[in-house]
């Protein structure tokens, strides 16, 4: 099993109550998976526990099948001393430069790729940041609201392209968009609110790929299941 989380519990120091307890799930197949739930329930904290950025939790995290795990989020910035394309070229290995150009095109960034990071809109900044993470050598990429401030059509185009271009990679997509996670994700770990037990529920999404037809009934069922769980 590439990723196993078993009975994870975590409390921030100084907090009166644990952020979450008894969180267990497994990811067995590559593809798009998701953490979904209201703000403040611990999605980001769990993601950071998985990547090893947070210690002091109880339970077991096994990433034996995954060599490199990366966590990216939507508040990241690129240094401002040169253009975005120059930065991307420097942090992406030369064999992947063709893929970089392809992603720039798909992500709709061709017109602004020579601009400096702070000259871009927030949506453009998030897309640029995601490109540099996608083209790193990793087995699991956590995308914490990495497509925030991007319009729906572009987001859909990006997710479908990423699924096509990186079929062997695990993605953990943290989002607040119920339609998006239901439509594109395979496993969805839903964080429940208001102290409900269990605190998390794993739900199967529609996991559609490029060219596949989406069954409205299946989408409705997945969305309903998620909303009931929350």
């Amino acid at each position, binding site marked *: 099993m590439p990723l196993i989380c078993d009975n994870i519990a975590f409390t921030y120091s100084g907090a009166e109550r644990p952020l979450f307890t008894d969180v267990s799930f497994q990811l067995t197949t590559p593809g798009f998976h998701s953490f979904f739930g209201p703000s403040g329930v611990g999605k980001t904290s769990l993601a950071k526990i998985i*990547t090893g950025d947070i210690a002091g939790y109880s339970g077991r995290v096994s990433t034996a099948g995954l060599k490199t795990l*990366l*966590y*990216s*989020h939507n*508040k*990241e*910035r*690129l*240094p*401002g*001393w040169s253009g975005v394309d120059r930065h991307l070229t420097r*942090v992406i290995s030369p064999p992947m430069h063709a893929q970089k150009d392809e992603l720039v095109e798909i992500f709709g960034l061709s017109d602004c790729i020579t601009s*400096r990071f702070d000259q871009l809109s927030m949506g453009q900044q998030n897309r640029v*940041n995601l490109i*540099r*993470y996608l083209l*790193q050598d990793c087995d699991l990429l956590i995308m914490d609201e990495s497509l925030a401030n991007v319009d729906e059509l572009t987001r859909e185009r990006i997710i479908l392209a990423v699924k096509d271009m990186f079929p062997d990679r695990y993605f953990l997509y943290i989002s607040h968009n119920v339609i998006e996670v239901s439509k594109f994700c395979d496993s969805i770990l839903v964080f429940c609110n208001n102290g409900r037990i269990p605190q998390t529920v794993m739900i199967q999404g529609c996991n559609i790929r490029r060219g596949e037809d989406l069954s409205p009934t299946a989408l409705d069922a997945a969305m309903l299941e998620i909303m009931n769980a929350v």
Partner: protein
Amino acid sequence: MLYRRIFQFFIIYFLFIGGLMLLKYSLGLSDYVIPAPSGMFHILTAEYHRYSLATLNTMTVAVIGQILSVIMAFIIGILGRQSTWFGSFIKVAAFNIQAYPIVALAPILFILLGDGFLTRLLIAAMICYFPVLLSVLGIMSKPVDDIEHFYRVTGRMRWQLEVKIRTFENLTQLTTVIAGSATLAMAGTIVGEFIAANAGIGYSIRIALYQSDMGKILIALFLIGITIAIYQAFLELLGAAVKRAWTGK
């Protein structure tokens, strides 16, 4: 920037002279205590050349001292930025040593090194070094997480890149601190000259003090002020040029 600095200096200087004249004429003080404007003009024309050279001499020492102190502050700040034992030691040492007034150490330097160029340079560098060091240490010790995260998790972070990111993100603050330290360097040099040196405008002020010549002191203050104003404006222009070239704004 240059004209604004000079204009600001003129306002302050002439307000100060105006205050002195008000004091002189309201209390009926003699020209011996506070010279009349005509007397000051006479001293200016008589001493202008000698005092200008002395001020330039002091300024040269202050500039070299400031450059040395900025270089030293960056070296120590970069070494002390990490949260290691060595980094903590440097930070604690810097905070403790700067609490001791450098001026109090000046006589020791004069005894050990004599009253020449090197002593003045050391005092100037030491006086403006610690404020710059504390700023550089603060800037270099504070991670810019939203930029550095990527380089850390992908194993691309090198100390040079870390320093570059933190310098770039705090460029305005660094420019302000360096421009501000020019005044400290000048003050340090003058204090050194005033204590025991044999050259510079501080030395000239000491002689004027022994002669109780207020006019000469006021002319020296004018030349010191205008020189610092021009030098600070130059540093600010340089900082703005570096910022424009680096950030594209």
